[in-house]
């Protein structure tokens, strides 16, 4: 069943179009930076972007930071929102369940496929970022890279921490996927499910900037998204990272449980 879902996902032209679009923005930004040589000053613009002109090896992180606020969540919400509602809208859901695929098994397979897409999206963005970074910008200086805290990091450390950052962004996106998948079991409209998940994220980002909302700020799903920057401090600042992981864990657990409870007891009338 999982293989069937993976095959459906990756044989679908839309999946690859989404990944391609996802990479367009970081590539465009890189080209503009090279042509103009106008990097944002440190502390402004997306994280890491100020540093890439001197070290192209940091561009994967800059690329992730560029797509993280909007593009990546949209892509994940589209795929996850489509998971169940898309089958319902196409009418294939009733045939899958009468086959019988099993409701729990279908949901798990959909979740794994969404997970695979999240990983693929994040890894491809990082990989394309790396290729673009080392081919357009200066190679890494011999002295080693400067961490956000000002000390030097070896290239081995950079690689390890980049991998961790990819994992962290992946987990953050899993939270988005859980929202979209839950909404996907509620409605027969994939667009509705995707928009629902995005509405949650927009609301969360908005509340985060509002002082009056500070009591609930630690529980907003987007609160710790950018904490992956902390992986590049020396030493690594774990506080926000662990909180971010725990928060996403709770969201994913609760939402998937709700999705399961709803989907397994639902009348399929699509």
């Amino acid at each position, binding site marked *: 069943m999982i293989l069937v879902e993976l095959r459906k996902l990756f*044989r679908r032209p839309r999946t690859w179009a989404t990944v391609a679009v996802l990479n367009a923005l970081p590539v465009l930004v890189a080209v503009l930076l090279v042509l103009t040589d106008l990097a944002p000053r440190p502390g402004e613009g997306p994280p890491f972007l100020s540093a890439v002109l001197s070290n192209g090896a940091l561009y994967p992180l800059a690329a992730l930071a560029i797509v993280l606020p909007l593009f990546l969540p949209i892509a994940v919400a589209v795929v996850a929102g489509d998971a169940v509602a898309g089958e319902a809208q196409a009418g294939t859901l009733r045939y899958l369940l009468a086959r019988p695929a099993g409701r729990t098994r279908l949901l798990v397979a959909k979740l794994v496929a969404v997970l695979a897409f999240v990983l693929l999206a994040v890894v491809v963005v990082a990989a394309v970022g790396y290729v673009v970074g080392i081919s357009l910008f200066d190679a890494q200086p011999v002295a080693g890279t400067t961490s956000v805290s000002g000390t030097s990091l070896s290239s081995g450390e950079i690689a390890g921490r980049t991998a961790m950052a990819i994992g962290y962004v992946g987990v953050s996106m899993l939270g988005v996927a859980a929202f979209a998948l839950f909404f996907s079991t509620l409605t027969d409209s994939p667009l509705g499910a995707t928009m629902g998940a995005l509405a949650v994220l927009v609301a969360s980002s908005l509340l985060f900037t509002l002082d009056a909302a500070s009591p609930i700020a630690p529980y907003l799903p987007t609160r710790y998204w950018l904490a992956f920057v902390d992986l590049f401090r020396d030493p690594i600042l774990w506080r926000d990272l662990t909180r971010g992981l725990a928060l996403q864990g709770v969201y994913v657990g609760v939402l998937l449980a709700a999705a399961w409870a709803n989907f397994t007891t639902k*009348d*399929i009338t699509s």
Partner: protein
Amino acid sequence: MSAVIATRALVKRFGRLRAVDGIDLDVRAGDVYGFLGANGSGKTTTVRMLLGLVLPTSGEVELLGERMPRAGRRVLPRVGALIESPAHYGHLSGAENLKLLDAAGPGGSWRTRGRRVAEVLEQVGLGGVGRRPVTAYSLGMRQRLGLAGALLRRPDLLVLDEPTNGLDPQGIAEIRELLLELHRGGTTVFLSSHLLAEVEQLCSRVGVLDRGRLVLQDDLATLTAPTGATVVRTPEPDRVRALLDARVIAVDGDRLVVRGPDPAAVNALLVGAGIPVTALALDRPSLEEVVLAAAATSADRVEAVR
């Protein structure tokens, strides 16, 4: 005879509406069962409850001797279904669609998958369709592909909801022939339809649903059994009336219904009196008359509540 589909006091309520209101279906092995009902009478909801898609409010469903939806994983691989319209992944070919569907559940070995898909495509008349994506199929081709999906695992029971929808007359005849052939091979067929003619040509047993209630369930032969009267056509209906008087039940132009179960005897009587007879037949109710007598108005009508 063992029951293939048995429901007991099956009820489905959507809010205040009782879509299915306590029905007791009884479909036996070897039946071609025609499930008739107007649009909105609860046919589709019932079919969905049989397959475990819609969960009953109360009552029981037994499919191939096991309780649904609990035993779905064991029972459903032996059931082929066409539920309302066919549905496929448009960007994939017909064969690829069938392979994915087969792989999505138990009871279909991957070793035989390619062969079974090719066989079943041949059987429904799509053998030469090749790698074309389903988006490029006509409505009739999609219907055939849907039927192919239902036949993929040589099911013991076929549950078909409007299977000839979108087919041209040749296609309808072809599918009817296919269903009868499968039935001869031992498959029980449960055919849900609002097309009386289709059911009359195919089915051995009939159930009629009217606003959620099963108002009729019997063998087709019993329902359309001779009424004990004879239909006579003659250019001189008045003379028949004069001769037989009280035995004439109805007159409609040159068509008379005369009491008397033996057309030959009626004929002898009329010819003996010198009345010309142009046609003679046993009086049988048509399925349409039976259904209209059993079911009230169309369920699409929504009357104002006074």
